[in-house]
């Protein structure tokens, strides 16, 4: 390729998707630069100093890192491995009683507390979800077709149709029936135990601005299961270790990193990308610029409405990207005293969800600008899960809490305090004695996440996942092929198909698409 440019491609954002994309491009011998405003790589996995301990900025568990990508990029050679590959979950009721379950296996023995009927129904139901999620996972790996497009499009549709057909007639009908409805109705049909239903509903809504009764909350559940059939894992060394492994994989293939470099805009000349301009005025040139920040920020801030058409801008402005998930970190002192009492709980993923109505009410609060009085909480103790992390006598507990509105009514600091207090109380209920061990805490609201990651809205998926923002409609139809209307500008972040979470699939799909297109040039 031409040497008139500093690089063949510049990736904006050293989040995991940006690095995955960069690594695939470098594997195909492209000279790649990754620039990030932060001082360390990882995006939501970026290590943050928290009272002397390192915590990832936002993401706490691996629900579905694409395993083929781990192989392609030889991440194990770069120090990546799992501390735990299949973390069990426990859901808590208001009285502190709990049900243990896993989305990854049929171990009904652990379903203590649910009725016989529920326990009997569970394996068949779970397996069906996993089967259906296979369709979603197949869709996730494909670059979406263009609406009204060519023969490559037709092949994609055909392949998906065949997959569906292979389910068999009645299963296909069931897939199409529940695909777009809500998880509340599906679970009401199936199970009795309110807390168990709430556990599965929580899997469907975590990270989404949805409640169990919202449309397409089955789709989001299938999305979650698609990555690793319900397995929930934690890398050795914590989530940030994945970022470090990706960086090493990139560097071993010649990718250059430039940190502390905020990209102000994409340089465009004659309707083509020419590079990026940094905040300090530095211009770095490349014929291909790939942005891993959200589509709206990319289009409206980094590219600019003046390079785009009005109808397109209107659709981009209407992408729903307001986050609703907060992260709270707790620093805990020596746990030896209480570890015995709650031994089991300390190595599990703890969900607070008494029943589906509680989740629904928590969502209602946020719809009207208030933080949830009784939120949905996912709590883990990474330093307990990952034994490799054991020099320190201190421990970490990290929580994802819903729902916290992006646009809040009233004083934000009061909301922060209330949220912290509510979460502490819920943690105490799940792990009695917890509160007395807290020595420090950190609260990240969606607006903090927005600032910390440079995206619009601080949403888990950079853009809500819903049928109208899914597959060939994600994030808007004209962007579904990862490509902006301006030649040479691409998207590779969570806002693209198939969406967010630590999967790396958007980054990989984008790289495949870019390599196919750029070799044509």
């Amino acid at each position, binding site marked *: 390729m031409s040497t008139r440019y500093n690089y063949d491609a510049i990736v904006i954002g050293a989040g995991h998707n940006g690095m995955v994309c960069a690594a695939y491009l470098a594997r195909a011998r492209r000279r790649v630069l990754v620039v990030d405003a932060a001082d360390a790589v990882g995006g939501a996995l970026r290590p943050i100093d928290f009272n002397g301990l390192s915590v990832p900025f936002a993401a706490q568990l691996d629900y579905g890192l694409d395993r083929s990508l781990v192989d392609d990029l030889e991440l194990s050679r770069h120090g990546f491995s799992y501390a735990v590959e299949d973390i069990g979950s426990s859901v808590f009721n208001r009285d502190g009683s709990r049900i243990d379950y896993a989305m990854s296996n049929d171990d009904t023995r652990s379903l203590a507390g649910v009725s016989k009927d529920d326990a009997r129904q569970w394996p068949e139901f779970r397996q069906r979800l996993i089967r259906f999620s296979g369709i979603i996972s197949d869709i996730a790996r494909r670059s979406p077709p263009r609406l009204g497009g060519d023969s490559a499009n037709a092949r994609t549709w055909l392949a998906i149709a065949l997959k569906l057909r292979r389910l068999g007639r009645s299963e296909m009908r069931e897939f199409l029936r529940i695909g777009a409805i809500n998880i509340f109705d599906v679970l009401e049909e199936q199970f009795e135990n309110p807390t168990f239903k709430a556990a599965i509903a929580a899997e469907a809504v975590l990270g989404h601005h949805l409640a169990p009764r919202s449309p397409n909350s089955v789709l989001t559940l299938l999305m979650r299961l698609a990555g690793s059939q319900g397995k929930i894992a934690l890398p050795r060394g914590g989530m940030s270790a994945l970022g470090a492994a990706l960086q090493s994989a990139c560097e071993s293939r010649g990718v250059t990193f430039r940190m502390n470099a905020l990209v102000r805009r994409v340089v465009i000349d004659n*309707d083509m990308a020419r590079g990026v301009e940094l905040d300090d005025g530095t211009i770095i040139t490349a014929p291909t610029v790939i942005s891993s920040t959200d589509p709206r920020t990319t289009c409206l801030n980094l590219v600019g409405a*003046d*390079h785009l*058409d009005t109808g397109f801008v209107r659709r981009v402005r209407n992408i729903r990207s307001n986050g609703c998930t907060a992260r709270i970190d707790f620093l805990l002192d020596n746990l030896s005293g209480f570890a015995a009492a709650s031994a089991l709980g300390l190595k599990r993923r703890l969900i607070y969800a008494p029943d589906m109505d509680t989740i629904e009410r928590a969502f209602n609060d946020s719809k009207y600008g208030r933080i949830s009085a009784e939120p949905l909480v996912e709590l883990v103790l990474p330093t307990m899960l990952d034994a490799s992390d054991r020099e320190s006598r201190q421990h970490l507990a990290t929580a994802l809490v819903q729902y916290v509105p992006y646009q809040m009514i009233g004083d934000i600091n009061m909301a922060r305090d209330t949220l912290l207090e509510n979460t502490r109380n819920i943690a105490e209920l799940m792990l009695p004695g917890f509160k007395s061990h807290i020595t420090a805490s950190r609260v990240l609201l969606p607006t903090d996440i927005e600032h910390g990651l440079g995206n619009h809205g601080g949403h888990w998926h950079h853009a809500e996942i819903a049928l109208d923002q899914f597959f060939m409609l994600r994030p808007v139809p004209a962007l579904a092929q990862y490509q902006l209307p301006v030649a040479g500008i691409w998207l590779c972040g969570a806002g693209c198909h198939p969406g967010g979470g630590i999967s790396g699939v958007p980054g990989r799909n984008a790289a495949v698409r870019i390599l196919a297109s750029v070799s044509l040039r």
Partner: protein
Amino acid sequence: MIMAPYESQVLTTPFHPRTSAYCRTNHWANWSGYTTVQVYTDVQLEYFAARNSAALFDLSPMTKYDITGPSAEAFLNRLLTRDIRRLGVNRVAYVAWCNDDGMLIDDGTVFRFANNRFRLCCQERHLPWLLDSAFGFDVDITEVTESIAALALQGPTSCAVLKSAGFAGIENLRPFDLAEYELHGASIHISRTGFTGDLGYELWFHDRHALDVWDALMEAGRLYGITPMGSQALEMTRIEAGFIQANVDFLAGGRATRPGGNLRSPLELGLDWLVNFDKGHFNGRRALLAEHQNRTSRFKLVGLDVDGNKPANDALLYDHRDREIGVVTSAMWSPTCKKSIAIASIKHHVDADHAGIWADIYVQRELKWRRIKATCRVVERPFFNPPRRRITPAGAH
């Protein structure tokens, strides 16, 4: 406020006290929510006033937007297909704008009053589109359709009428020039523009001055044959001038609800000269560039000279092998050209000079229908194009 159809109301223009007094036929029509005169006395009389002396036309229902602010120019340059940076202060430009697919939304005129002050005039209402287009630009958009009254004074004696009304130096305005005047304390913008393809002017002013200006012009024009003109006569001059009309010769972009091919790109409407690919990005540029480079235009606009004297309104067009190739969108018997003329949209691939085009015209006399196969020749537009339209200083005639 949302009104049921039976509650809706048609407004009157600021000139209503005068136009209604002159309107003998009581023939009115709803133009963009305003009742306007179709014919005052006799359509031929009004038409000939426009061609031989001076015709006064109430233009007030024209949609008008004031566009101001530091990025007004950049905003318009992105909105419109022309290079607005080249439009000087006190100049007017004929413009068009497109949707993302490069399909025409509307055409109109842009007035540049100052570096950062413009007015856009057009047929349809476009505020939502303009506001959406303003995202990312430091610009204010105000609709002034109601508060700005407008008159067109068109015809060979129009300059003389304005001069005698006290607009000194008006003859020095070049076509598409714009100047501000004061008349009895009223600020009046006059542009040498119009829809008739002849010497003519348009006057723009606050609606509170409407009746004074009307009276002053009628008084000044008494010896110059000034005649109020209704929409029907204007339509005749419009076709002779070869101008296209929204929702007649093309469907305005905002009106299309059905998918598939009912809209036209500017390249398909003979407006190539309005499209500047070198000025930077504008709405629809990528689609238009692809159309231009891949030669994928589906239609072209042509002027036709139709055999015989029957207007070819709405006629389907065929080639010598009787294949349907297009449709007439505007047609008339032109009293000045003394022939039957038409504006038509035909398939792009048709070799118009050798296709042997004929129009399928249906005429009715005393309820008896007759079908005429009229041979058509493609001719240049405008059909009527007198030198006085361009000469500066404008003649007294």
